[in-house]
């Protein structure tokens, strides 16, 4: 049996099975294989952002359904097809992505399931900031970190922006239990991803970690008082 002292002798780097270059090329190969899905994904993301900014009765259902599709697609196209071959541990993460999609459908698709705020307050503002980052800024991180646009992580096609966008939605919805339920898995993914990037020494570890902090802050923020 492995004792506690032996477990404590391991460092995060001891669990890394691949090099930074291999990790970065995952996204390049993924983008090459999926082109031209990226513009479509960005347009759908834009539609979701519009729904969050100008909520209609059907907006929450649209957002929940599109995000659910994203979680299933990323689980299959990125995690299973690309990430599992270099990281067998990801096999155990895939069911959580499917569970997140089921949660989004179960909580968000029935009429009146999720309640998007119509008035501005701290929760909504932080939620929108997270969503905008996931949609527009996160793909550009590839330029900042020197990967080039070929290595861009696009919402709906790769896990980090999808998790950050879902954190944004979970942060802003009015019903507390639903918000917390939708927040857990994306937050766990962002923590794992941030630690992975930091351990690999790849720039850009802080957005997923910061996103978790902002989502928790928003969810824990006192409910915005209704204004007349």
């Amino acid at each position, binding site marked *: 049996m492995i004792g506690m002292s032996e477990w404590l*002798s391991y460092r995060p780097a*001891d669990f890394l*099975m*691949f*090099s930074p270059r291999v990790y970065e090329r995952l996204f390049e190969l993924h983008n090459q294989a999926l082109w031209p899905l990226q513009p479509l994904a960005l347009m759908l993301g834009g539609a979701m952002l519009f729904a969050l900014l100008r909520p209609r009765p059907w907006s929450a259902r649209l957002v929940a359904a599109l995000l659910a599709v994203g979680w299933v697609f990323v689980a299959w196209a990125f995690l299973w097809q690309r990430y599992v071959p270099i990281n067998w541990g990801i096999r155990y993460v895939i069911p959580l992505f499917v569970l997140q999609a089921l949660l989004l459908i179960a909580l968000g698709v029935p009429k009146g399931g999720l309640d998007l705020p119509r008035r501005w307050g701290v929760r909504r503002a932080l939620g929108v900031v997270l969503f905008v980052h996931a949609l527009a800024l996160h793909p550009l991180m590839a330029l900042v970190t020197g990967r080039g646009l070929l290595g861009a992580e696009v919402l709906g096609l790769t896990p980090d922006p999808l998790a950050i966008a879902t954190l944004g939605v979970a942060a802003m919805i009015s019903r507390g239990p639903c918000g917390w339920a939708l927040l857990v898995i994306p937050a766990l993914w962002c923590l794992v991803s941030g630690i992975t990037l930091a351990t690999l020494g790849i720039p850009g570890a802080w957005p997923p970690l910061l996103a978790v902090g902002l989502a928790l802050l928003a969810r824990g923020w006192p409910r915005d008082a209704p204004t007349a």
Partner: protein
Amino acid sequence: MPPPPSRLSRRALLSGLVSLAAATALPPLGALAQRPPPLAREVPAIGERLPLVGLGSWITFNVGDDPVLLEECTAVMAQFFAMGGRMIDSSPMYGSSQATIGHGLGKLDALDRVYAADKIWTSRPGHGPAQVEASRRHWGVPRFDLLQVHNLVAWEANLSTLLAMKAAGEVRHVGITTSHGRRHDTIERIMRDAPLDFVQLTYNVVDREAERRLLPLAREKGIGVIVNRPFRQGRLTERLAGEPLPEWATEIGAGSWAQFILKFIISHPAVSCAIPATTRVDHVRENMAAASTPLPDDALRRRMADHVRAL
């Protein structure tokens, strides 16, 4: 009827270009012919001589199905075999590394040159034979030369499986592994009690715990010793990179810190093979060149360890 025009895919084109680049990176055949083979040492337990430097695959060969990186790994293997290397070590725990090795062996037609060392890594003892078969298919070898119990995972049952496979002729040699200096007490006990051919452990100029009990015991029992993490996964050579090599390093023919460290390791008489891992052809060349005379004697080995400790 004329044959249909063949379509050259981007993937095939890329693969071909990288292979060409890899091939042109190799030294000319004349130069290879003049190069002496790497130093080898007999492993008493198996009655064979193995080159003192091999090739590891942890992290470096875990490249998935990336066509560019697969060809880079193939170029590393090509250089390794061209310089007389034989032992390549992997594990089912190493992601796609086994498949990468299989890709390279197939492309290089090197099944007759490789000493194939892999591991059994499962906590479900009944799963062992199926895992070994899956590993064998990845490598594309008829059978493994060496199978080891990876990091002592379920070692009683898995070692029993491997010994039964050896008795049936399904593997030539068996062993156990550890790393980072962990569980040396258990390793020592198994070395005393079980008919091992090899033990794999961490040993280098700063990780010297194995010198106290395991290396002397390996010599006494004739067990071969494979050394992993010779450069502490690159951190040791990175740490030393800013320091000048001591002038007396020329006495042992070490032209770099990597060669300095490897020569320290393989000069221990109990060591059979060090297995540095790399993605770079120039590093393979450098590593393999370390398996050459002169090697340091006891006094110089002490000086080497003292020098690095003082840095």
